[in-house]
Structure formats: C-alpha cells, structure tokens
C-alpha cells in the first residue's frame, strides 16, 4: 500500500545510494507518495501530533539530562538549578513536564478516535495492539519520570504504586524489595528509574516504527470505515495533502501546549511536589498526575488490594482484546447510531473516573467510583459484544469516493454513487 515505484532518482549520487540502501525511495514511498484516504478528518492528525510530541519529549529530556543529578540528596536541588541558573532551563523543564501531559492528552484522543471509527478492527488488530503496547510504555515512562524531581508527590506516588506489587501472592514482597533495591523507595530506586526513564522512550520509538509499518501495510482507516478500493479515486498522496494538514494540526496543538508552558505551567502539577521528598511525612492527599487518575480510581474502587491491582491492570489489558470483543460488522460509529450513544457514555465514564481519582476515597465518591468502574468494564465485556449482534446500523457507502461525493453531493450536480443513500449528518 505505497507508491514505491514512483520514486525516480535524478542524480548519480542518489542512484548510487539507492543501489546500496534504498532509503530515499523508501521514505518517498512511505511519506510522500503514500496513498491517504481523501475523507480523513482532523482527528487523524493526532498521529503526527504524537510523533512530534515524542521527539519533543526526547529532545527536552536529553538536554535536561545534561543538568540533572539522579541522587536522592541532589535531585531536587539539581531541578531547582535547572529552573534558576541554566540558560532557558525554566522553559525546558516546563516544556518537558507539560509535554508529558500533552503527550497523554493527544494519545487519549488518538485512542478514542480509534474506538469511535473502529480502527482496531480487522485487518488492523496488530496495529491496535502495538498501540496498546506503546500506551503501556508511555505510562511506565511517565510514572518513572515523575519520580525524578524527588518531591513529596514523586516519592509518595512511587511508594504507593511500587507497594502494589506486594499484592502478588507469595512472591509479592520479594518483588517489591527487588524493585526498590532496598526496603523502601530510596536512592537505588531513583537511580534505576532514571536509567529506565532514559531508555524507554527509545523503545517507544522502535514500537512506533512497527506501529507505522503495520499501518502502512493496510493503509489508514477513515471516518466512513470503508477500505480503499481505488487508489486514484479514494486517495491523495500523503505529501503535500496529509503533510500540510498535519502541520496545521500540530500548529494548533502547539498553541495549547505553549499556553501551558508560558502561562499556566504549574496548573496540571501538584504543589506538594515543590516540597523535597520527606519519607517521614505523608502528604494529606496522594494524587497521581491527571492522566493516571481514571486507573487510580479503578484501583481504589475495589476494596481488596490484590483485586484492585488486577482490576487496574486489566482495565488497560482489556484494550488489547477490543478487536475481538466488538462483534459489529460495521466499522465506523458514523453508521452505528446506538454504538455512538454508548461511546459517548464511555467517554463520560472515563472523565468521571478521572475526577473521582482526584477525590479522597470516602463518602459518596466510593460508590460513584464503583459504579463507574462497573460501567467501564461493562462497555468492553457486555456492550461491545452484544451491540454488534443486535444493533441497527445505517447503510455504509460502498467506497470512500462515494462517501466524499455524498458529502459534497448536496452542492454538486453530480449524482451520488448508486450504493450510497443520502447520509444523516454525523
């Protein structure tokens, strides 16, 4: 699914290189000539936005690493030196910290896009699963990165989450001690988290390469959920069409990102993390960063420690089974009005769980968290399997070209394709 053969080397030097390592024709086939469906909307720019954010985090991370000291007695003050003494240090630190939030914000939109439009369905199952793996790696990276400033929330968040491993029967305590490198979160823990935090983003790069490769085998999904039939009629070349659209999307995303960096840089963070870690004093509320809140709510909703941990991990692992849990033959929610309702309910459930994750675990919040946890699992285990078998779907256009023509059909005199009936909007 790419136009490899369109690349024609002009100069002798390029021909020489092509005969030895056809990287230029590969790049051309994958990112210039690559056929992209015409009907993609702006939700499809988040892949490029994510790639941009991955590079941004790696670049800001490497330059921060030039000044950071991963020792429990020096880490906190090394971050303060970055903020006060290093040229532009304050900007690099705020860019990296808020960049992590923006990275997760983009990945959630990217994932919800996939769920809404059925991008996880055959033949894109491996693409989806690679995405789940990237998501898990992102969570591990983000968790360990937050520990590095060695503030109160860094320390106590690490303590709470690493303590979860002691829930594993029989070997739990040993695993936890092994993880810590000691009998509590301390300097050995910090050092190994730093090493892994530096390593994992490059593992993410590798899995992203696989993710894009898997994508290019079958081509993009699209808002109408119909496969590409005729490259000429259904697609446009990636460059300049998708490139420019992605560039615009990235520019708008940067506006949001820079809003955080320059005007509300500490909005998403916790004030307690500006207090140096004190193993003798627990903060009144231990709260993870916002992007972990829904899973934190699920963890706390189950009164049993082990089952809480299992529930939390399975809430993410369940995503990998999505291609098989959803039984619908129709891909895109655009043509599945009932699913659409459940999708938005699921989104509300996710946001609700996120809010509850930040609240203290008492009173009415507990019941609410339990109900929403149930709803979360019900969406995957009950709604998706059943809905595909019973729902009424709208007629799906035969081709992308038909869908595009139908959309502009009201303005044009060209008759819509025979297979597509006038669509209800949205």
């Amino acid at each position, binding site marked *: 699914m790419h136009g490899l053969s*369109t690349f024609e080397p002009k100069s002798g030097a390029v021909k020489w290189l092509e005969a030895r390592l056809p990287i230029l024709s590969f790049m051309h086939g994958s990112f210039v000539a690559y056929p992209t469906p015409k009907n993609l909307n702006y939700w499809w720019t988040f892949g490029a936005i994510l790639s941009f954010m991955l590079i941004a985090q790696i670049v800001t991370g490497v330059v921060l690493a030039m000044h950071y000291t991963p020792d429990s007695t020096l880490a906190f003050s090394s971050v303060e030196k970055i903020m006060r003494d290093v040229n532009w240090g304050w900007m690099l630190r705020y860019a990296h910290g808020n960049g992590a939030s923006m990275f997760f914000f983009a990945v959630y939109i990217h994932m919800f896009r996939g769920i809404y439009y059925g991008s996880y369905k055959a033949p894109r199952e491996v693409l989806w699963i690679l995405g789940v793996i990237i998501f898990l790696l992102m969570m591990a990276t983000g968790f360990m990165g937050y520990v590095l400033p060695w503030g109160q929330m860094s320390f106590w968040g690490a303590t709470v989450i690493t303590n979860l491993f002691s829930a594993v029967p029989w070997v739990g305590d040993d695993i936890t001690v092994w993880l810590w490198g000691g009998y509590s979160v301390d300097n050995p823990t910090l050092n190994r988290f730093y090493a892994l935090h530096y390593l994992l983003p490059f593992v993410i790069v590798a899995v992203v390469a696989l993710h894009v490769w898997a994508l290019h085998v079958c081509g993009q999904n699209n808002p109408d959920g119909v496969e590409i039939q005729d*490259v000429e009629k259904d697609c446009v070349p990636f460059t300049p069409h998708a490139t420019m659209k992605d560039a615009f999307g990235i520019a708008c995303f940067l506006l949001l990102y820079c809003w955080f960096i320059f005007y509300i840089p500490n909005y998403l963070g916790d004030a307690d993390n500006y207090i140096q870690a004190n193993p003798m004093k627990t903060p009144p509320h231990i709260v993870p960063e916002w992007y972990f809140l829904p899973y934190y709510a699920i963890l706390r909703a189950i009164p049993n420690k082990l089952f809480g941990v299992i529930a939390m991990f399975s809430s993410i692992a369940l995503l990998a089974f999505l291609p098989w849990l959803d039984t619908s033959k129709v891909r895109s929610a655009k043509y599945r009005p009932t699913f659409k309702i459940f999708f938005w309910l699921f989104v509300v459930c996710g946001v609700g769980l996120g809010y509850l994750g930040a609240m203290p675990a008492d009173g009415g919040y507990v019941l609410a968290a339990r109900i929403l946890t149930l709803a979360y699992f019900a969406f995957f285990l009950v709604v998706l399997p059943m809905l595909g078998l019973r729902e009424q779907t709208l007629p799906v256009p035969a081709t992308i070209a038909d869908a595009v023509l139908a959309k502009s059909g009201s303005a044009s005199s060209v008759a819509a394709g025979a297979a597509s009936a006038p669509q209800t909007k949205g």
Partner: protein
Amino acid sequence: MAGLIFRRAPPEESGQARNVNTFAGSRRSEPPAPQGSVRAEPIGDEHLATATTVEPTRRDFLYIATGAVAAVGAAAVVWPLISQMSPDASTLALASTEVDIGAIPEGQIVTIKWRGKPVFIRHRTAQEIASAEKTDWETLPDPQPDSARVQKPQWLIVVGVCTHLGCIPLGHAGEYDGWFCPCHGSVYDTSGRIRKGPAPRNLLVPGYAFLTDTKVKIG
C-alpha cells in the same frame, strides 16, 4: 526487496499502480504547476474554477511565506537548546575569584583553584626576578619578555597547567628553579616560560587585577 516488507499490489491492479505513479508523481513537492494537475475523475465545477484561475505568484507567495515563518520558528526552537549548554549562572558567578595575597611570604608559591584549575601565585624573590628579566627572551621557544607576563614584578600569577598535555608542574624545580613537569620533562623558568621539553607555550597568564596591594581578583 521492498515486496518482502510491503504487500505488493496483485498483477491485475498493476495498471492502477502505474496510475499511482502519475497520480503521485504530479503531486511531488516541486514548485507547483500553475494549473491543476492530472485528475483521475471529473469534479464539481466550482472546484475546477478555483484550481485553474489562481495565479502562480499568489500561491507561491503563500508557500514561501509559510516556509519562511516555519524556518524562523525552527531557529527559535533550536536556539535555547544550544544556549542551555553554555555555562549557567552559578558557573558564571564563580568565573572570578578574589585572593588575599598579603600572607604569602617571599619565595613561596601558593596554589589556588580558579575555574576548576590550579593557579600558581608566586611571591618572587629579587634573585628570581633578576633571572627572569635578564634572559635573552627572543631566543626562547615561546618568546615573551618578563615584563609582558607580570603587572608587579614580585607577583607572578600563572595557570598551573602544563601547556604540553595538561599535567600540573612542580614548583621550585628544574634547571631554572621555576617549574618542572614530571609527565614529560618540560622545564619552565621563574617567569613561567618554557625553556626545555615538549611544551609548546609558556604557562598561561590569566586576566587579573590588583584590587589593593594585598588583594588580587583573578578572572
């Protein structure tokens, strides 16, 4: 080779693959053709009108303007990434140091730390000053008169790093009773000038100023 990685189009679709050539080829990122490119299908009249009546200069200007603004943005992003490697405020604050030399007796060499390196402060005796001044300095490996190396003749201040490969020379040693570098045998005189051995240059004189008779600011 590429077929191993990418699903190759089945033979009956090769005609379409060739269409992809022209379809994609006409859209390569070269200066855009003035009129619309090869189209595979008829489109609505209003779109046709837009494509064929736009002037090349206006479309080019937009692309050039966007490219220029993007380039400025890229430069603005790169600058802090480079600047952050320059010495930070705390390092710059330690870039100069004040030394109280009042307690150094004649004949003694004191070593202080400046910018992470040793600096020799030598309270020279009359004999040492004389031997430094009475040298035929033009024949030296790195010709320099003693007067160019001191502000007050009794105070010689030099960076204590051998100009050969960076070892710290030993004071009151060597043929001229200046310094001797044990690593490869460089010999310096009482003005810190190289006399024998592999070192190419005299011991470096840092910038310094006398704040008072007993206080000197180095750097």
